[in-house]
Structures are given as C-alpha cells and as structure tokens.
C-alpha cells in the first residue's frame, strides 16, 4: 500500500489559469491561490500523486537541492491537508500508475519554495448570511435542532 493525495471534492473546486491555481472551499468560503512551484505540486496532487512522485517530478522541472524540495513539498502538502483541501488515501501499487505526473517543459527553472495564499474575505458573508440546505419535505425552514441551538 502506498499513500497518494486526492482533492477534497465536491467541497473544493479549483481552476488553473495562466499557471496560477485558484482554489475555493465551498464549505468555508475561504479561497486560495498557488503559483509556480505550488501550482506544479497541485497539478500532481490533482492527478493523484504521492509524496515521492511529487518530489521526483519537481526535480525534473526545477533546479534546486533535493532536500529543500522534499521539505517544501511536505510542508505544502501538510498545509493543504490542514486546510481541508486534500486528503491522503491508501492505494495499491504506485499512486499514479499509468499516468504521467509531469511533462517536462524545456529548461529547468530555479526552485523556490511554494506558498499558499489564503483569502478569508468571503467568510464574513457566509457567517453573516449562511444558507442551510434543508430537506425538501416542506418549506425550507430551520430544523428544531437549529432553533434550539440558536
């Protein structure tokens, strides 16, 4: 068994645009962005890669010390897990068996540690005006447990 990572769908949605990843957590209203090496790591996670594959692929794409890359990958993956954006899964065999983790894009770029930019301005909207999905058996209305909890 090996460990791979999965995007926490359906609560997490993401798009990559001009090399930058925009991630939105639909449950919390928090949104994030990842650039450069962070976007490359996300691309690998989106393909279901494990830690070793992400690190190996970064080494193909970026010029830097393997130790530095390993530490950076582990740090970002941990942060993504803590934010609830991804989850670890145990799979049989190689995590992304049969699919390429990265394509090589020309010359290797200097490696810079990734950073996860976090934006919480939408949380106010959600906290002030939350919308609760309720059963279809009647008017959409707070359930007794909601009312009791105030």
């Amino acid at each position: 068994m090996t460990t791979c990572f999965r995007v926490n769908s359906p609560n997490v949605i993401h798009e990559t645009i001009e090399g930058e990843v925009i991630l939105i957590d639909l449950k919390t209203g928090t949104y994030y962005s990842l650039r450069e090496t962070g976007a490359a790591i996300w691309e690998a996670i989106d393909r279901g890669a494990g830690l070793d594959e992400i690190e190996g692929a970064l080494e193909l794409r970026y010029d830097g010390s393997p130790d530095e890359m390993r530490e950076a990958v582990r740090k970002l993956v941990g942060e993504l897990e803590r934010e609830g954006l991804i989850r670890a899964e145990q799979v049989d065999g190689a995590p992304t068996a049969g699919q390429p983790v990265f394509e090589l894009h020309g010359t290797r770029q200097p490696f810079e540690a990734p950073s996860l930019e976090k934006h919480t301005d939408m949380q106010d909207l959600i906290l002030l005006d939350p919308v609760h999905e309720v059963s279809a058996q009647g008017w959409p209305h707070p359930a007794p447990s909601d009312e009791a909890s105030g």
Partner: protein
Amino acid sequence: MSRAATAPAGPAPTLAGLHADFERAARGAGGAVDLRLRIAARPVCIRFAGQAAAKALRPAFAHLEAQETEPPALTLHVWDSERPAAAPPRSAEADAGAAGTGPSYYSESDGSRALHQPASDVFSVLTTEADRGWFWMPDATALPYWDYTAPFRHLLSWWLDAEGFRHVHGGAVGTAEGGVLLVGPGGSGKSTTALASLLDERLRYAGDDYVAVGSGPAPAVHSLYCSGKVHPEDLSRLPHLEALLADGNPADEKAVFYVESATAGFPLRAIVLPRVTDRRAARAIPGTQAAALAALAPSTIFQLHPPAREALAQMAQLVRRVPTYVLELGTDVETIPAELLRLLEQ
C-alpha cells in the same frame, strides 16, 4: 456552509396553493399589475398584486421595460399584502425586526426550488422548468436597500442559469460596440467607476453590482438592474448623481439612484478591476487572468445559493476570452470615463 437538518416545520408548499394565494392577494389589491421586460434578450413578465408592490420594485427594471407580445419565458408573481396560507412559518428573527441579514434556508423538491430568508421573512420559489416563480415579502415598502435595488436576485439567477447565462457579482459600463465588467470586493471602486460613466454620454450604464453574462464564445453582458448605490459621503465626488437620486430614498446606509437611460447590454470587451489609489487621474494597466478570476468567482459563487460548482469553470472560461485591466482610480473621478473609453478603443 450547509448543515444537515431534518423535520422542517410547515407543510410543503404546493405550486397551486401558492398561486391561489397570489391570485387572492391580487384580487384584494385591485388586480394584478403586469410589468413586461426584456432580460437577456428574453421576454419576462412580472405580475405584481397591486400597485404598491409594483411601485416599490419596478424602478430597478425601468430600462428593461418593453412592449412584449411574445409569451414570456419567465413569469414571476410578486405580492406582499396578507400572509399567504402557503407561507413558511414566521420566524423569531422576523418578529425581532432583524435588519434583513441572517441565515437562509434552501430546498429543492419535485417540481420546484425554494429559498426562505427568515430575517426579512421573504420567500422565493421557482419551478424546476424555470418558467414560473413566486416571491412573497411582508411589506414591499420595507425591504432593505440591497433587496429593492436588486429584486428577485435568487429567482433571476436560477432562471438565468437554466437559460445558459451566469448571474455575476460585478458592475458594467460600455458603448453599444462593447463594454467592461467591473469586478472586485466592496470598497474597491466598482460603483464609483460605474456611476462615473454617466459623466460621458458615450458610455452607457449597465449596473453597479449584479449583471448577467452569456457564456458563449462571444461573451456579452446583460443588464439586470438600473439601480446604483453609493455611500452618502462619496456623493460629493459624484455631484452629477444628485439629479438621479431616487424619490423618497429612505435614510439607508447608501444613497440609491435609478439610471433610466441604462443599456440592456453590450458585447464584453474586457474585465476591469478598479483599485483605489492616491493618483490624481485614473489609469488602466494590464492585469492578470488569475487576479480577474479571484475577484470575480468567489463573490459570485457565495452571493447566491446554491453555490454553483460549475460557475468557477465558466468564469475561468470567460476570463480567458477577454483581456483584464487594473483601473487605478484617482482623486479626479472625471478622468474615469475617458480612461474607460481609451481602453475600449484598444
């Protein structure tokens, strides 16, 4: 943010029961007042039960009124008088006279989707076919400004979604040949930029907060509301708006305007992110697609319900199709229209 909930109070609303409530209210109010509109190039009919509800909510659509003979693609039934038999239970929030903000409750059932906003006690129901809707409020003259300046936001967003459009959080101004979508958080200068466009007769106003955007290969902006809102302290920078100040505008947090000369829409040429700076004159500089998507998508997705998962991909597609600019706003508001026109001529 959804929580699991069970055993909702009140009987399930039947569409026939709702409609009977509307018809009864219309008879009691002297008959239905039909407002025929053209929204996103489609015929729409809003049926108000009586003149009072029509008077309160009609001004936001003044620029879209049309002599339509085609059968409407959407008919909304709107009333406020007596509490309908088919209404959801009145909540403690409404009894406490809450200001209109607070939790909302959404559900989908066979044949319809419904949203109840207990603090303002309004409810919205749309058929699954998105061709008929019902909107009830306790008092049309007592809605908060964000509701009477942009009525039926949820109903229109669900309908637009079914018609292949996206209801987005943004303003828009332009010419008949093309215009810009103004996106950004509150306080970024969207309304100032949109309302400054009224200083130049070549520019047409399409909204300061919500518009619809077509998702085809040639994206277009469709205006929804001709209302505009500014903080009273900003009025001194926009003195040309005084003539447009809405009659009887209650002492709200914001001054409200209705721009009857607003356009129904235009082709989308660019996405503009206004930014308040200490410059004197406004200046547009190239922006990134990622910045445009981050400014447009989260606030669009979370302003309405349910949050549409597919909206992010649709908006990314839109952002890829037109250029993005950052509009650095200066202290001289009068320089904004010329800079927008220069950008549109590029």
